[in-house]
């Protein structure tokens, strides 16, 4: 004979287990994905959904008003702050050219960058360097004579 409390406990534990699985998938993506943008894509979304599932499970196991207020606050903060921080990280990664350009199918910002006056070979050199954003040595010579 199962009471309502036991059913809620089991459902809450199931939620926590599914949330932990999402966190595990984000962690596997951290190891296996090739560059910062792919890892960040995998990190933010399952991570937020996993944390929300864990919080819902905690509330199902301990249903009380203080728990509800705290968990609502934590959930709202996660939902609001995760897009902002991932946006900042992606912006920094793109500008520092720390992304794997050979695995990218569509680069929608490429035309914007070229339209601002960056020459094609400068952009290609910066992308080929990977972490190094300085142009190669021979690329600097034409302007150094002036």
């Amino acid at each position, binding site marked *: 004979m199962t009471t309502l409390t036991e059913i809620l406990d*089991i459902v809450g*534990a199931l939620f926590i*287990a599914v949330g932990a699985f999402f966190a595990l998938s984000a962690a596997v993506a951290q190891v296996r994905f090739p560059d910062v943008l792919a890892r960040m894509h995998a990190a933010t979304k399952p991570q937020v959904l996993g944390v929300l599932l*864990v919080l819902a499970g905690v509330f199902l196991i301990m249903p009380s008003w203080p728990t509800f207020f*705290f968990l609502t606050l934590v959930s709202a903060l996660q939902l609001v702050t995760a897009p902002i921080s991932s946006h900042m990280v992606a912006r920094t990664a793109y500008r520092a050219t720390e992304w794997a350009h050979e695995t990218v199918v569509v680069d929608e910002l490429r035309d914007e960058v070229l339209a601002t006056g960056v020459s094609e070979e400068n952009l290609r050199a*910066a992308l080929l360097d990977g972490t190094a954003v300085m*142009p190669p040595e021979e690329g600097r010579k034409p*302007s150094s004579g002036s």
Partner: protein
Amino acid sequence: MNVVEIVLLFIAGAMLTVAAALTLWRIVIGPTALDRIVAADVVIAIVIAAIGISIAVSGFDTGLPMMLVLSLLGFSGAVAMSRLISGSRMDSTLYQRRLEGRTPGEDDR
């Protein structure tokens, strides 16, 4: 607390342990600082989930303020570190090179 709940929470804890180990490995080998920032965000989410498991197991709600502080800490840490990186590279990004004829190193001479 019955057997099914204990088994489910144990499985969740084991998955979180593996996830934390994998993410710490990325923090160790991460080639750039941005990789480490993203991985540290994941670690913070894993710690939040682990605190949730400890609350569910123990029945004490003293971990709730810790969850709140950690969720704020991950956000401010990621934003501050990405601002730091983009600020320290500001003179050498390709966005600075769009100023006509100006290449990095030219101002040094």
